[in-house]
Each structure stands twice: as structure tokens, then as C-alpha cells.
């Protein structure tokens, strides 16, 4: 081709300019107050649609009246003048997610809060609000999500894809329990695939969040963890959106076939933020001034936790919502709502906490409706016996004050129960592997520790595993698989543990 021909071609192309007019649906600010903008116009705006103010700031359409749209400002409300133009964007609020988010602390819009620049490469835009996977897309919850906490893994086991509520008063160890769970995912117990963790802090003090993040970093848990933060000093809109952002991140990994764990710390404050927004939006107030859709708010969030079928990638999203009760009242509005939504609850009690039983799990009020199937076979074998012994002890505990007036069988039962309670105590930030837990629980539940003094139980537990590994390595190896223990294995284990127990008396 001659150079003249190319010049002619380009000239021809430049003569025919493609006209693509920009079409927008606009409105104007009528009033602003408490982070809510009322705007007229916007006749084509949809509920939950993102709108853009003239100065580039974004808002979320929260209600559509006959004449006005109420918009939630997604940034500080300073200087939004009356009459400012707002236009629809035709998009829903979404977040850019990729593996680059691991180890980072972000806000609900994906902006970094840890003081380091964040560039998310190869991202996927995930909408904050989505419909939960349907029945046909799901598979039963059967794979364990090990918390590393004996009392939880034994009494209220959690499966991958389950929703397990953690409920209790302030300062009962709710956050400590979930932080331990996140830390335990580092160990890749039972050769299960790595669980990606998302910790969502809602309405918490920045100091508390910083302590949690520092602990996760210290325990090398940030490598597989993303922290989503909407602290108490952020607008209610951010606190309202934070758990949805965390859930969207978890879903991204679930759809990639991975296992994700999302912790919502806590949904009580989320409910408060939503109540604040709803009152400002002038929605009718219901019980305790919460809006009528407060149940739907939490059910649509938690319903997104799922175990997907193999045909859908086989990923899972486990949800651990936290609810803070007032004076131990689990029959209040929000706790009962979330209890009925989730697949079980772990109830932490102040009295137990103050009595030194930590984690302060109330075994009677805690339950896991689906997690039992997700326990390893050996764990299920030993925890059943312990649960029975513990229940009998609790019903007899009231008599324990009579001491020597009790018959021998009852005293023996109480004695064993005390050892079970002692073995279920566990220091913070020291999650245990499946095998360690199986041996401790089996030893206490089957009466192998009946002769060990109470104050020596902790010493027994700290040394028994090392002893087994050194003195009977083949047995330890056999038990490590998590399979059901046959009679011969059980006998061998009993002999080894009894022999060791004698050495710590």
C-alpha cells in the first residue's frame, strides 16, 4: 500500500465521527441531613442503585417515594448544597476482589485502611448484595471447620458451609473464640484444604480492631485473612454495608471452589446501624424501634453462607456471626432473630467466665444442628461419651455441695464431670489439633483421668501428646488420620494413656 492511500483512509475515518450521546437520568438535591439526601427527579432510579453526585461522590438509593428518592451518602456529608445534580449510574454497589486483598485491612468499598497503597490486580467486581445460592446448588455440610477449641469442636462442631452464632454478654470471650478459630486455620488439620478467612469488624473501637489485627499478624494468620472494618466512628452507612462487603469477598472465594470463613463481629451493632438509618429514612419503627425488615436484613446476609455442590465448584462459605446480649438475655429481639436464622449457637456465659472456665461455653444452651456430621469419625466416637458424662455431671452438680453424703456412684460421676470441665478449659491463642483434642477428650470422658488430681489435669494434657509420639509413634500415626478407632486401637490407647496418667499423679 502506498503512503498516500493510508493517509486517505485515515482522513476518511476521521471525517465520519461516531456520535454516542451520553444518556442520563438526573435529579436534584432537595434536602440533606444525617447522611441522607432527599432528591427529586431520578424517575428511573432503582432500589439499591448507585447514584453519583455532581462532585463525583456516590450515594445508594435506599427508598423511592412518589416524589422523592432517599439516598444514603457513602462519604462524609459536608457541603452537599441544595439543588446539586445527582445522576443514576445503572450499577449496583460492588467491590474489586482478588488474592491481592490477603493480609490487608480495608473499608467496605475496598479502600485500604492499613496505611499502605493497595492495587488489586486481576480483580473481579463482586456486588455487595446478592441472592443466596439456591437449594439445587448446595451440598450437605459434611467437612469439618476445626476451631481448635476443644469445647467447640466436641460439643458444637462447625462444618464448612454452616452458620454458627456466637452469643454472649460483653467480655465473655466472643472475639477471642473467633480469633482462635482464624489462627487455627493455619494448621491445615486433617489434611483439609486451607480456609480463607474474612474478619468483619462492625462498630468496634479502632483500638480493639488494631489489637485483633496485630494478634492475627503475630500469629501469622494475616497471610490467609482479609479484615473489613467499619469502626464505631464511621457513618452508619458504612457499618450497614460492612458485613455485606465481607460476605461478597467470601463468596468470591467460595465460587472459586475454595473454603471461606466470614466472621461478623458483631451483628448487634449492625442492627443498631440499620435502625439508625431506618429511623432517619422515616421508615415505620417496630419492636425496640427496629424497622420491620430487620429479620430479613440478617437472614439474607446469613443465607449466603453455603456449601456448594461439586457441580458448582464445591466451595463453601461458613458464617460465624456474633451477637452481644445485655445481662445474658438471649430472648431479646435481635438474639432470637439470629438464633432462628443460624444452624446453631455457642452461648458464652459471664458466670462461667468469672469462675475461670474459659472458653466460657454453656454446654446446655449451646447447640450445633448440622455440624455433628462434619466431625472426624474418631472425634465423633469420643465426644459422644464425653457429652453424656458432662450432661450427667451437670444434673448432679447441684448435689456436689453435700460432699460425703452422696453415694459412691454419684460421687464418682461428679468426680469425672469435674475432670471433664477441667479438660475443656483452654488458654487463649492456643488452638489444638484434632488428634490432641481426641486424646484429651477420650481420656476425660472414659474415666482415664479419674485418679489424676484436678490441678494436674493441665499438666497431663500438655505432656500426653509428646509422650505418645515418643513412646508409641505407630499408635499416634494411626490416630492422626481421624478414622474410627477399632477395639484394639482403643485398648492400646487406653493402656498408653493410663500408664502416662499414673506418672502425673
Amino acid at each position, binding site marked *: 500500500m502506498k503512503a498516500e492511500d493510508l493517509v486517505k483512509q485515515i482522513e476518511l475515518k476521521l471525517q465520519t465521527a461516531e456520535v454516542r450521546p451520553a444518556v442520563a437520568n438526573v435529579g436534584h438535591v432537595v434536602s440533606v441531613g444525617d447522611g441522607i439526601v432527599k432528591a427529586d427527579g431520578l*424517575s428511573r432510579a432503582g432500589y439499591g442503585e448507585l447514584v453519583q453526585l455532581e462532585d463525583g461522590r456516590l450515594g445508594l438509593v435506599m427508598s423511592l417515594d412518589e416524589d422523592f428518592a432517599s439516598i444514603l451518602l457513602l462519604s462524609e456529608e459536608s457541603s452537599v448544597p441544595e439543588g446539586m445534580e445527582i445522576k443514576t449510574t445503572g450499577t449496583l454497589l460492588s467491590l474489586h476482589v482478588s488474592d491481592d486483598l490477603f493480609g490487608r485491612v480495608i473499608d467496605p468499598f475496598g479502600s485500604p485502611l492499613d496505611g499502605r497503597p493497595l492495587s488489586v490486580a486481576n480483580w473481579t467486581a463482586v456486588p455487595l448484595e446478592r441472592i443466596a445460592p439456591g437449594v439445587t446448588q448446595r451440598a450437605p455440610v459434611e467437612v469439618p471447620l476445626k476451631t481448635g477449641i476443644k469445647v467447640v469442636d466436641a460439643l458444637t462442631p462447625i462444618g464448612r458451609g454452616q452458620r454458627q452464632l456466637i452469643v454472649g454478654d460483653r467480655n465473655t470471650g466472643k472475639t477471642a473464640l473467633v480469633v482462635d478459630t482464624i489462627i487455627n486455620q493455619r494448621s491445615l488439620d486433617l489434611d483439609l484444604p486451607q480456609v480463607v478467612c474474612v474478619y468483619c469488624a462492625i462498630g468496634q473501637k479502632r483500638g480493639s480492631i488494631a489489637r485483633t489485627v496485630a494478634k492475627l499478624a503475630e500469629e501469622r494468620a494475616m497471610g490467609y485473612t482479609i479484615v473489613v472494618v467499619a469502626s464505631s466512628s464511621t457513618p452508619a452507612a458504612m457499618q450497614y454495608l460492612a458485613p455485606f462487603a465481607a460476605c461478597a469477598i467470601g463468596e468470591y472465594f467460595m465460587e472459586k471452589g475454595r473454603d471461606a470463613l466470614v466472621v461478623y463481629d458483631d451483628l448487634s451493632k449492625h442492627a443498631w446501624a440499620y435502625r439508625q438509618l431506618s429511623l432517619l429514612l422515616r421508615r415505620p419503627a417496630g419492636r425496640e424501634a427496629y424497622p420491620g425488615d430487620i429479620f430479613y436484613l440478617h437472614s439474607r446476609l446469613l443465607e449466603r453462607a453455603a456449601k456448594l455442590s461439586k457441580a458448582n465448584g464445591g466451595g463453601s462459605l461458613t458464617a460465624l456471626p456474633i451477637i452481644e446480649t445485655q445481662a445474658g438475655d438471649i430472648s431479646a429481639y435481635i438474639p432470637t432473630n439470629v438464633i432462628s436464622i443460624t444452624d446453631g449457637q455457642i452461648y458464652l456465659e459471664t458466670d462461667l467466665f468469672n469462675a475461670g472456665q474459659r472458653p466460657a461455653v454453656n454446654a446446655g444452651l449451646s447447640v450445633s444442628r448440622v455440624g455433628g456430621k462434619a466431625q472426624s469419625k474418631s472425634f465423633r466416637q469420643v465426644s459422644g461419651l464425653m457429652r453424656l458424662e458432662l450432661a450427667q455431671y451437670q444434673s448432679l452438680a447441684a448435689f456436689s455441695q453435700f460432699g460425703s453424703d452422696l453415694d459412691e456412684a454419684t460421687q464418682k460421676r461428679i468426680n469425672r464431670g469435674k475432670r471433664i470441665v477441667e479438660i475443656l478449659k483452654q488458654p487463649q491463642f492456643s488452638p489444638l489439633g484434632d488428634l490432641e483434642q481426641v486424646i484429651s477428650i477420650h481420656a476425660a470422658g472414659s474415666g482415664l483421668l479419674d485418679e489424676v488430681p484436678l490441678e494436674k489435669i493441665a499438666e497431663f494434657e500438655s505432656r500426653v501428646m509428646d509422650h505418645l509420639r515418643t513412646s508409641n509413634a505407630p499408635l499416634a500415626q494411626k490416630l492422626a488420620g481421624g478414622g474410627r478407632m477399632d477395639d484394639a486401637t482403643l485398648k492400646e490407647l487406653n493402656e498408653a494413656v493410663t500408664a502416662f496418667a499414673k506418672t502425673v499423679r
Partner: protein
Amino acid sequence: MNRLAELSFTPAGEIDEEIAARIVDNLSRSQLKSYLAALRREMRRRRVYVAISGGRESEVSGAIGERYPGKELSVYRDDGLGAGVKVSAGDDIVDASVMGYLRELLEEIGKA
């Protein structure tokens, strides 16, 4: 209020003075404010504003008028558009001007 504002107009698009007077006389001060807002919205809905840069107003307005039958056309010159035309019909804005194109381009660059 929207219905009252709608009824205040004749089929020809003029204000029906008799109806308007009856409405104004019977409304309280706060109701009158709402009526005024509704009247403004109704006027915006009935009228199409066409901003054109440079000449050719009559030629362009004829073509646009065909697209919005039954609506009153208000054509004015706006050289700030650079070149092209911007049509505002109710809440909808169709911007086919150079200035609009540049604004959109800047937004895209800002997002990237």
C-alpha cells in the same frame, strides 16, 4: 399534589386560570409549597429544553421536536457546549455535545 398540578394545565399546555385560582385559594401555606414543587415538576415534564451550540437552531429543533411529540420545545443557544446539542426532557438528559464527551472521558480516566 401531582394530580392537582396535572389538572392545572389545559390540553393545549397552558395554565387553566380558573382551576389554578381555585387550587391556590383553598390550599394552606405548607400545601401551597408542595403544590409549587409539583407544578415545577409538571412544567419540567411537559417541556423539552434543547441547548445548541452555534447556529442551525431551527433545523435541529425540528428534528428533535419530532422525537418528543406533544411536548413544548424550548430551544436556546449555549456556546459552552463546544459543539453539538444537549436535550433535557424531564429527568432524562441526552448529551451529544463535545463538552459532555470530554466530561465523560475525564470521568473514565479518573476511574482508571
